[in-house]
C-alpha cells in the first residue's frame, strides 16, 4: 500500500511501540499532524511550548526506560526544542525529536520559519538526519530509535521537509539496523575485568561511585550485590541518585561540590574508586578537591570517550555496566571493611541551616520523606531546591529522581513531571521547584489540567535566585546582582486560575498537615512554602570545627 512519508513516519512510531508523543503543531509539520489525526494508537500531548515537549519526552524516557518522542514545526518550533535536546544529551536520555522543515527544494533560501536544525543540533545530538528521500523514512526512524536507546543513550533528531513528507512510498518497516559506524561495545574485556577484580579484592579503603549509567543500564541490583558482598561504601553523582537506596547503611550520600562531606572525603581518602557510568564532571571532582594521587581508579562506562577524558584511569573497562558487574560478581570475594566504614561514619556531618525563617528546607524535605518513604517520583528544577532535594531526600528506587544534571536547565521539572506521570500513572509524582525555575515553564499547568494528570508541586519561594545569590556571596563579595525578583505573582491564585488546588505555608507547624493534604489530593496540587533567600544549608563536621557550605567550592 502506498502512503505518504508523513503517514509512514507515524506508522514507524507504531512499529516502535510508541504510546505517547509530546508536541506542538505548525506549518511545516502539518502533514505529520494530519497523519496523527487519523491515528488511534498514539496519544499526543499538546504542551504549551516546544521546549516543554522535549522535556516531557525526556521525563517520560527517564521514568519508563523507553525512548521519548517529541514533535515540533520548523524554525522557532525546532529552536525551542533545542534546550530540551541539549538537556537530554548532557544526561544521556534517549529521545527522538521530529521536526518539520521547509520544502527540500527551498532549503537554503531563508524561507519563512526556516532554520538549519540539523546543523544547530549536531553538537548535542547523538546523531541527526535531514530526510531527503521519502523512501528513507522507515530506515531512518528505525536507526534513530536504535541509536537513541542503545550504547550510551541520547537524543536523535529527524528533520522532515514538507515536500518529502507529502511524497508517497511503499511502506515496509525494516527488521534490522545496519550501521557500519555504530557498534557499541557492551561486554567488558575479560582481562580488564580480572584486573578490576584483583584491585577490588585487595583494596583496603574502596568506594563505589555510581553515576547515571547504572540507572540507564538497569544495573542497580548488581550494584547492590557488589556493595554488599565486598562491603564497599557507595556514593553517587547527581545523576546516580536512586541507583542505591538512600537508607542503606553503606550509602554515603551524593558526592561533588554540592555533595555530602563524608562522600567527598571517601573519594579523596580511598585507595580505590570504582566509578560506574559517571563522567567525572567538574561538579563532582571539584567536591573531592581532586583525587589523591595514590588512589586507583576503575572506570566502567559504555562510552569509551568518557574514560580518561576528565581523570586518569588505572583500570578502564568499556562495556555495559550490568554486563560488566555480572562478570565482576563471579569473582568478587566477600569482605568486611569495618575500620574504613567506621572511619567514614565518624565523618558523618550534621546539617545545620542558617538564615532560615520559620521553615527550613530540611523541614519540608524531611516531612515529605516521612510521609512518602521513597515511594514516589520526584522531578526538580535547578537551583537551591534541587541541591537540597538531592542531598536530603532518601531515594529508594532507580528512575525516581528526575533532574537536569549536566545542563542544569531551569524549567525542566514541570514538563518532565508530565512525562513522568504518563510513564508511571500509579506513582505519586512530586515536582519540587523554586520561584525562579517555576516561572520559566509554568504554562505547563494547563497541560496538566488538560490531560487530567496529578502532579504535586512543592514550590520553594524565596523571592529570588538563592543559589546564584550564594555564589555572589562567595565570589562577588556579597554584591547581589539581579538575584531578587521585584515582582512575583500570587502563586496560589495563579495555580487556582488553572483549576489546581493550592496552599501556602509559612511556618513549620503547618507543614505536616499541608503535605498530607497535598498527597491525598486526587488531582494536581501546588504547595507554596515561603522561605528566606538567606537560607543556607551547611554541614557541621567534627565537633563543630569545620563548616562546609554546599556551594563552597563552586564557581
Amino acid at each position, binding site marked *: 500500500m502506498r502512503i505518504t512519508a508523513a503517514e509512514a513516519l507515524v506508522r514507524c512510531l507504531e512499529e516502535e511501540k510508541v504510546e505517547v508523543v509530546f508536541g506542538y503543531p505548525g506549518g511545516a509539520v502539518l502533514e505529520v499532524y494530519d497523519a496523527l489525526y487519523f491515528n488511534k494508537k498514539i496519544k499526543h500531548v499538546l504542551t504549551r511550548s516546544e521546549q516543554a515537549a522535549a522535556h516531557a519526552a525526556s521525563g517520560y524516557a527517564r521514568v519508563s526506560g523507553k525512548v521519548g518522542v517529541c514533535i515540533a514545526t520548523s524554525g522557532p518550533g525546532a529552536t525551542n526544542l533545542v534546550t530540551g535536546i541539549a538537556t537530554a544529551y548532557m544526561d544521556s536520555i534517549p529521545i527522538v525529536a521530529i521536526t518539520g522543515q521547509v520544502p527540500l527544494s527551498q532549503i537554503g533560501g531563508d524561507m519563512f520559519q526556516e532554520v538549519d536544525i*540539523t*546543523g544547530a543540533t*549536531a*553538537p548535542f545530538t*547523538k*546523531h541527526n538526519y*535531514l530526510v531527503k528521500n521519502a523512501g528513507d523514512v522507515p530506515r531512518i526512524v528505525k536507526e534513530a530509535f536504535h*541509536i537513541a536507546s542503545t550504547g550510551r543513550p541520547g537524543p536523535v533528531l529527524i528533520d522532515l521537509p514538507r515536500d518529502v513528507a507529502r511524497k508517497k512510498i511503499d511502506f515496509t518497516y525494516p527488521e534490522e539496523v*545496519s*550501521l*557500519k*559506524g*555504530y557498534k557499541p561495545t557492551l561486554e567488558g574485556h575479560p582481562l580488564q575485568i580480572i584486573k578490576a577484580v584483583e584491585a577490588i579484592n585487595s583494596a583496603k579503603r574502596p568506594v563505589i561511585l555510581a553515576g547515571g549509567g547504572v540507572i540507564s543500564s538497569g544495573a542497580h541490583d548488581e550494584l547492590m550485590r557488589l556493595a554488599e558482598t565486598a562491603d564497599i561504601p557507595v556514593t553517587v553523582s547527581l545523576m546516580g541518585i536512586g541507583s542505591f537506596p538512600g537508607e542503606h547503611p553503606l550509602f554515603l550520600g551524593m558526592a561533588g561540590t554540592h555533595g555530602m562531606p563524608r562522600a567527598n572525603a571517601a573519594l579523596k581518602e580511598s585507595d580505590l574508586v570504582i566509578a560506574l557510568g559517571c563522567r567525572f564532571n567538574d561538579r563532582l571532582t571539584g567536591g573531592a578537591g581532586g583525587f589523591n594521587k595514590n588512589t586507583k581508579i576503575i572506570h566502567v562506562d559504555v*562510552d*569509551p*570517550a568518557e574514560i*580518561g*577524558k576528565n581523570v586518569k584511569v588505572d583500570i578502564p573497562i568499556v562495556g555495559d555496566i550490568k554486563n560488566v558487574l555480572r562478570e565482576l560478581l563471579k569473582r568478587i570475594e566477600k569482605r568486611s571493611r569495618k575500620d574504613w566504614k567506621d572511619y567514614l561514619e565518624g565523618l558523618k556531618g550534621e546539617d545545620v541551616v542558617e538564615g532560615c525563617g520559620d521553615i527550613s528546607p530540611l523541614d519540608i524535605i524531611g516531612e515529605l520523606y516521612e510521609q512518602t518513604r521513597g515511594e514516589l517520583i520526584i522531578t526538580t528544577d535547578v537551583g537551591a531546591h534541587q541541591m537540597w532535594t538531592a542531598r536530603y531526600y532518601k531515594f529508594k528506587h532507580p528512575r525516581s529522581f528526575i533532574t537536569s544534571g549536566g545542563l542544569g536547565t531551569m524549567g525542566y521539572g514541570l514538563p518532565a513531571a508530565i512525562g513522568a506521570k504518563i510513564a508511571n500513572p500509579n506513582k505519586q509524582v512530586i515536582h519540587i521547584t523554586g520561584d525562579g525555575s517555576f516561572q520559566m515553564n509554568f504554562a505547563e499547568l494547563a497541560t496538566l489540567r488538560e490531560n487530567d494528570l496529578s502532579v504535586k508541586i512543592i514550590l520553594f519561594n524565596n523571592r529570588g535566585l538563592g543559589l546564584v545569590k550564594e555564589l555572589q556571596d562567595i565570589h562577588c563579595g556579597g554584591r547581589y546582582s539581579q538575584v531578587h525578583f521585584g515582582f512575583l505573582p500570587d502563586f496560589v491564585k495563579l495555580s487556582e486560575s488553572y483549576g489546581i488546588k493550592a496552599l501556602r505555608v509559612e511556618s513549620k507547624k503547618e507543614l505536616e498537615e499541608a503535605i498530607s493534604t497535598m498527597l491525598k489530593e486526587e488531582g494536581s496540587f501546588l504547595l507554596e512554602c515561603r522561605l528566606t533567600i538567606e537560607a543556607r544549608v551547611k554541614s557541621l563536621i567534627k565537633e563543630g570545627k569545620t563548616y562546609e557550605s554546599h556551594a563552597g567550592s563552586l564557581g
Partner: protein
Amino acid sequence: MKATLAVLVENHPGVLSRVAGLFARRGFNIESLAVGPTDNPEISRMTIVVDGDERVIEQIKKQLNKLVDVIKVSFIEPENSVSRELVMIKVNTEPEKRSEIIGIAEIFRANIIDVSRDSMIIELTGDKDKVNAMEEILRPFGIKELVRTGIIAMNRGSKCIESPEQ
C-alpha cells in the same frame, strides 16, 4: 605532538561539517584535512593531521569514533607510512630569472603547469618537508599565490585500512 589519522566515513553530504564541527567545539586543532571518495563510492577517506598531547589525541580518536557517520579511525605511523601533499605555487618570473626557476623546479621534480609573461605556476608533490623546502627556495623570487591540498597518507606494505565487514 602531531598525529596523522586516516578516517573512513560515510560518503554523505554533511559528514565533513560534523567532523569539522566536532574539532571546533571540543577545542581540537586541525593542522590539515584532506578528503575524497575511496574505491568504494559509499565511503570517503579523510586524512587529518592533528596537534595535541597524547591525551588530546586519544580523545580526538574516541570522539571521532562516536560519530555515527565515522566508520573507522586509524593512526598512521610516520615511520611505516608514506605521506604526500600537492602544492601549486604561482611565482613571480622576471625574464632573467625564468631559467633559474625552471632549474629549481627540475631539482624538486616539480612540474611547470602554466607560464605567462611575468609568472609561472609550479606543481609539486611530496611530503611536507619537501613542499616546505621548495616554498622557502622560491620565496625570494616572490610567491604571488600558494595552495596546498593537505596531506594524504597510506601505510607501507600490505597492511590496509579497510571498512569492517557488515
